[in-house]
């Protein structure tokens, strides 16, 4: 594979689209890195499904309070202006459209906006957590993901082959190669790494990439 963004760089790119004062939910795992890259002068408020608004970074090791965790069960801290609430209120915020953006990981994203990110199929232990709620709640649902699987198969596809998390819910995908919007059931290329040609990106994508007007270079700092 040619040039690609690191996880941190993808997270950095996703962070640039978060407005000052936005209420944001970051999916468990690698999407959590987005919080680190808020542009200077902007302050988002982070929500975690298990009943905390406006939490901050992880505490120093040994300083953990295990009653103060995020949805990934990692220890967190509070920022001034935090609030605790119960699970029904927390998912009222989610389902009721009060979050400005949710940024989630993905196994597959379809050009229809369908997302598969909770189950790799009928074997093993199924576990869904809050993903299905988040995809139908936040005003904007974005995905952050490698452009292809470990064995090089496209994660952006025509139709998902894995069990769906939600139907027609994703509107933007930040990948290791490109920034792609989903509009009218099509992948619309907005930015790509300058080292790659359009055809390079198309070759690694499982459905047609559409260009509306023009697209920009995806430029991300070393991190």
């Amino acid at each position, binding site marked *: 594979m040619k040039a690609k963004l690191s996880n941190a760089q993808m997270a950095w790119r996703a962070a640039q689209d978060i407005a000052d004062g936005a209420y944001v939910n970051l999916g468990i795992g690698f999407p959590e890195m987005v919080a680190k890259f808020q542009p200077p002068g902007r302050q988002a408020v982070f*929500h975690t499904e298990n009943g905390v608004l406006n939490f901050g970074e992880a505490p120093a090791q040994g300083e953990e309070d295990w009653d103060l965790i995020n949805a990934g069960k990692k220890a967190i801290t509070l920022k*001034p202006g935090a609030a*605790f609430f119960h699970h029904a209120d927390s998912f009222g915020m989610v*389902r009721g459209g009060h979050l400005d953006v949710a940024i989630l990981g993905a196994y597959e994203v379809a050009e229809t906006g369908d997302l598969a990110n909770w189950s790799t199929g009928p074997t093993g232990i199924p576990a869904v957590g809050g993903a299905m709620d988040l995809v139908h709640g936040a005003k904007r649902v974005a995905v952050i993901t490698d452009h292809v699987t470990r064995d090089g198969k496209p994660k952006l596809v025509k139709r998902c082959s894995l069990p769906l998390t939600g139907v027609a819910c994703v509107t933007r995908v930040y990948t290791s190669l490109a920034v792609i919007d989903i509009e009218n059931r099509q992948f619309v290329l907005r930015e790509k790494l300058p080292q790659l040609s359009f055809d390079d990106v198309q070759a690694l994508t499982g459905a047609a990439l559409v260009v509306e007007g023009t697209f920009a270079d995806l430029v991300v700092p070393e991190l």
Partner: protein
Amino acid sequence: MDKTVPDLAAAVTGIEDGMHLMIGGFGGAGAPIELIHALIDQFRATGSPNKLTVINNNAGNGRIGIAAMIDAGMVEKMICSFPRSADPRAFTEKYLVGKIGLELVPQGTLAERIRAGGAGIPAFYTPTGFGTDLALGKPVAEFEGRSYVQERWLKADVALIKAELADTMGNLTYRKAARNFSPLMATAAALTIVQASRIVAPGEIDPEQVVTPGIFVDRIVKVADPRQEEALMRAGVAYV
């Protein structure tokens, strides 16, 4: 992130003709009198906002607050559970001559519909009202042999509510039974406007004690010594 606005006029700006307004309070407890009167001032000065639908448990009392809005002619329709009060003439006079609309909703259903609006639940089933005139035309269903009425969520363009304490990010607490519908309305309106007796910096409200998290609040205006509707009523005050 600072959601405070400088004054009441700024707090109520942008409310348009025909909008749906949730107004907190149960009787006089929690009625955001200063916000309501600021909106009346705006209507008197500009003719707008007009033709409002107002959602509140009641339909005004005396010649202040929601009653004064009705008197001023800004209200096209009330959605409420109990349009009676010690002095209900503002609503009654207009209602009896067909000049104001009424959607009567059982109180618990009103609360639950507003909560549903805020929580993204488009419909739910309740035993309340089954077999009564207030369920006419609504879908019914049986669950485990008992009959229920399907009710729909209720949302609004704007909520006007009264809090006791706010931080600048919009975290709120209320005072005693003045809480009532306000935490629900804050969740169910596109624009939630709060008058608070005190405004503090973020971190000065214990996160355990926040009743309405700031995510639900858009504008906060300080009204340091708010008037209480019931006390005004008993003092014979009119906002005309």
